[in-house]
C-alpha cells in the first residue's frame, strides 16, 4: 500500500508549502533547476543565486551562515525515507 502522504504529494494537493511543492515536483519527475528558477520569480531571496549548480550553491549558503549542512542532509534522508 502506498504511503498516504506520498499520494497527497503526487496529487499536487499540498501546494502551499514550498518544501511540499518541491517534493511534489520531484515526484512528478520535474527538473530541480526549472523548479528553483520558477520559484525564484516570486521569491527575491533566490534571485542572484546560481540555480544551475544547486549542490554547490547550497554548500556556499550553509558555509556563509555557519550551519551544519550534514545534519540537514541527515534529516532530509529520514524524510525521504519516510516517503518510500
Amino acid at each position, binding site marked *: 500500500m502506498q*504511503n498516504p502522504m506520498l499520494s*497527497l504529494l503526487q496529487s499536487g*494537493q499540498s501546494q502551499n508549502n514550498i518544501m511540499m511543492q518541491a517534493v511534489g515536483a520531484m515526484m512528478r519527475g520535474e527538473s530541480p533547476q526549472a523548479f528553483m528558477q520558477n520559484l525564484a520569480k516570486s521569491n527575491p531571496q533566490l534571485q542572484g543565486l546560481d540555480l544551475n549548480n544547486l549542490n554547490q550553491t547550497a554548500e556556499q549558503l550553509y558555509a556563509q551562515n555557519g550551519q551544519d549542512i550534514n545534519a540537514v542532509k541527515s*534529516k*532530509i534522508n*529520514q524524510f525521504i525515507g519516510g516517503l518510500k
Partner: protein
Amino acid sequence: MTENSSFFGSDWLGAFLIIAVLFGGFGGFGFGGGANAAIDVGAAINNQTVQQALGAIQLSSANNNYETSRLIDNQTMYLMNQNNTNLVNAIQGFNTTAQTITSGFNSVNQNIANLGYKMEECCCGIKTMLLENRLQDTQIALQNEQNKAINAEQSAYLLSVMGKWVANAPATTAAGA
C-alpha cells in the same frame, strides 16, 4: 525518486538544502521522519481541508459576484428600459402637443380665411348698397327733373292757351311756333 542513492546524487538534494536554509522548511513537515509521518499526513489532510473550504468560499464568492452582476445588469436594463419608455412617452407627448398646436393653428388659419372672406363679402355688400343708394338718388333726381320738365311744359301750355303775356312770352311763343 526510487532510491535514496539517486536522490542524494541529484540536484534535488541541493534544492532541498537551499529551500531549508532560506525558507525554514524543516519546522513544519516531515524532517523528523518515522514518528512524524502521521503528523505530516494529518497536516497535509488538514491543509487539503482548508483548501477545499477556501475553494468553496471562492466558489460562493464567484457565485455571489455573478448574482450581483446579474442583478445589476437586470436593474440597469430595467432602468434603461424605463428611461427609454419615459423618453418615448415624452416624445409622444411632444408629438401630441405639436399636433394639437398645429391643429389649433389650422383652425385659426381657417377662421382668418373665413374672416377675410366675410370682410370681402361685407365690403362687397357695402359697395353694392352704396351703388344702390346712388342709383336710387339718381333715379329720384331724374324723376324730379322729369317732374320739373312736365311742370314747365304744362305751365307754358297753360300760359299760351290763356293768351297772357309774360316777360318772356316772345321766347315762349317763338319756342312754341
